């Protein structure tokens, strides 16, 4: 028995060492220097915190959400501070892909959290909160983004303002929304140009958003897709339903 256990232990260590040496495939469980550059929080992290950081930064795939995996290591409201920190931080939106996967994987809880952060969080985090909905298949995500095409509130971006070429004007909520809708619509239909950037004059952005709004109102493929999309409304708390209604999701 002891020998068997020793053999298993040796194989486990050897396997991990091989995986680390290979450097390809699944993220090594011991963070490399490069991984630590992207996620300094990993240094010294152990247990659940480490699993969450590895998942957020290196493992979760928003294009193919592993709900079981997400729910095994994330839950709300337990992890709201961790996730909110990445919405608020200055600099690059480091956890963009991982947060999309977490929000989608947590179902109604993820939707409610992202909507709540959008409406009640810092203005600087509105764009990221909407971005976190990109992988949510539910009808409510579509409706929320579509409703936000009317929302001209600014989304201050300290990093962009300091890094941009001449002509920069901060994106607004509606700019984020049309861009994100564009990403989601790629597999559904062919909308007019949804690329709206911070160097595009405001009046030009408004003209594009108007075209997209008209398109969404008329396009049969889009309307059918949204009608068939699953709904999370029935799983939401009354206060979260109320929040979404306030954001135009009916």
């Amino acid at each position, binding site marked *: 028995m002891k020998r068997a256990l020793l053999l298993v232990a040796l194989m486990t260590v050897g396997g991990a060492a091989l995986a680390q040496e290979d450097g390809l495939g699944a*993220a090594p469980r011991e963070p490399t220097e*490069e991984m630590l550059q992207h996620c300094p929080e990993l240094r010294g992290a152990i247990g659940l915190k480490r699993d969450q950081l590895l998942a957020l930064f290196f493992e979760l795939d928003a294009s193919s959400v592993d709900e079981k995996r997400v729910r095994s290591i994330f839950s709300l409201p337990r992890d709201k501070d961790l996730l909110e920190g990445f919405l608020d931080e200055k600099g690059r939106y480091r956890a*963009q892909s991982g947060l999309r996967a977490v929000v989608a994987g947590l179902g109604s809880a993820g939707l409610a959290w992202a909507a709540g952060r959008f409406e009640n969080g810092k203005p600087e985090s509105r764009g990221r909160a909407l971005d976190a909905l990109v992988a949510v298949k539910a009808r409510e995500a579509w409706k929320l983004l579509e409703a936000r095409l009317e929302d001209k509130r600014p989304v201050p971006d300290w990093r962009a303002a300091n*890094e*941009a070429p001449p002509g920069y004007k901060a994106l607004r909520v509606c700019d984020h929304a049309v861009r994100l809708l564009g990403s989601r619509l*790629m597999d559904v239909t062919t909308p007019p140009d949804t*690329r709206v950037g911070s*160097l595009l004059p405001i009046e030009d952005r408004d003209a594009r958003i108007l075209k997209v709004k008209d398109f969404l109102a008329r396009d049969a493929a889009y309307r059918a897709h949204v009608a068939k999309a699953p709904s999370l409304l029935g799983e939401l708390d009354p206060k979260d339903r109320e929040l979404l209604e306030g954001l135009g999701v009916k």
Partner: protein
Amino acid sequence: MRSFKAVTTAMALLLFAGIAHPLDTFLGGEFVTTGTASKGGAYTGVLKVTPTGPTTFRVSEELRYASGNTVTYAGDATLSGDTLRVSGETSVGFLGKLAGKKGEGWTATFKVGTDGMLKSGSWALAKSGTTASETITTGKKNAATGDLLVLLDGSGQPVAKAKKKTDGVVLAVNLDDDDKDGGSGADGVTTITTDRDDENGVSNEDDLLAFRLAKPANAALGSRFLLSFSDKLAVWRTKTKAPGTRIKNGDTIEAKDETLWLEGRDASAGGTPETLSVQLLAPNGAATLQDEGKVFVARSAFLLLGHGHSSSSSLESWLGSHKADSRKNPVLVRGKDEKGKAQAWAVYLWSTEKQAKIALSTAGSVIAYDGHSNFGLGFAFETNFSRVSQFLNIADAQVPVNWPYLRDHQDHPNLIFEDAEYGDDASTPKFSDPVAVDRWIQGDNDQYHTRRWPAGGNGGGTRYPLVRGKDYKWDDHHYLVDSDATNARIVVKAGSRDMPAKRWSKLFLNSCYGGPYYYDSFGGRGTLFFTTDEASSPLTSAIFIESCIEGKSNDQTLKALNKAENINDYHVFGE
């Protein structure tokens, strides 16, 4: 009994001497013919016979008449006994085919000798009634196939016989500098001598692929191997390319069991791998056995990781599940080219200025740069720069930068621009009064506004005088963004002295505002993909490289990029 013993003894002697057995199977070859046609007269010809099965062949004959006329016949043939019967047609040429023309029916018969050589033949044309008889004067027959060549994959495992001529092996072009003697790639140095062109041997060389030659047990004493391969390959006796150990195409070497080394020199065209062939030559020079294998020399794909990059883990994960074998940096992958043809790819994850110069000057490469834009000043593969020249200078002549931001938030806390490096309009006597002019850059479907700062001025544009900082030199500026005193820009002289010869095929500038900042630096060549806004996605560099490897079109690639982060565009400049 005595005659039987005599025959077997003779056969044994013939085998020992390496002379072809009198009952050898006809294997085709290339033969020179002379003949006379009933219409046209005397001619000489080149007759090519290529096996397509145990007793079937593809035959073509190009005839040159004394009058100077040439004509080509081609058809399919079957061997029955000692007679090769061909049925085909005359060639109408490419234009004729386009015009829907059909050739005239051609039938031919050739006699095959017991030595595997064609002896004589006759042919006839159906429509014109022309007939001819010909003799084969010289020729080279194909040798029997034997196990002379063992290809080894990148994990050192022999390639199965059935796959040697189909899947073969994949090999990277030897474009790195393992022994670090190809040049430093320092400021202004744009030419690096890669290991491919290193004629002094390469210590630590790790890009060659071993293969084995196997001498048949019954090969005659004095047999030799003849190696044939294209100029996209090189063969070496030593792994380190020691001088004097190269075996050239067409060289013969002593036939023995031996390990040699393949080097990739240039990428194979899509769908057209290289053929490494080996012939066993008898002491009299006759080819008795032949063998061959396919070698796909890979095109190169680079992920250049600059300071501020968004992680290579997405690409590493994809490579982990698509790699051909255990080789690393480059990882070898079987993919496609833009036309959907089979193409091997060598994928490099590199992160130095020298490596960036190699990548940009590699013919046909696809490259994603992932890192800070540094306001168009150039790429940084390290931090803590103190002067402009330490950046990879591949920029416009003058660019506006956020100096305090570079110092305080992009890890260059000691960065200093001297007055002489401040941007200027050289056409005026005033110090540091650069002029901004409008510029529109072209995407696939859209145009994007930006500004440029020509060094000589151009009589138009908006002039910006220098404003000196109160307390620190790095507060000197030419303008404030939205009148915000904490968000200033100073125009500095940049330039492109680090830009090597531009040879890439596709390039993705995956840095913030990559298009507005670098469109003119990298434009004019190949296909340029670029961001148009602040970039965050950790996936898009990988998506770009994977799309190239999978042979996706530009539009498909753009769609995949914008699904992840809807800020990208591209423009095709052509070669």
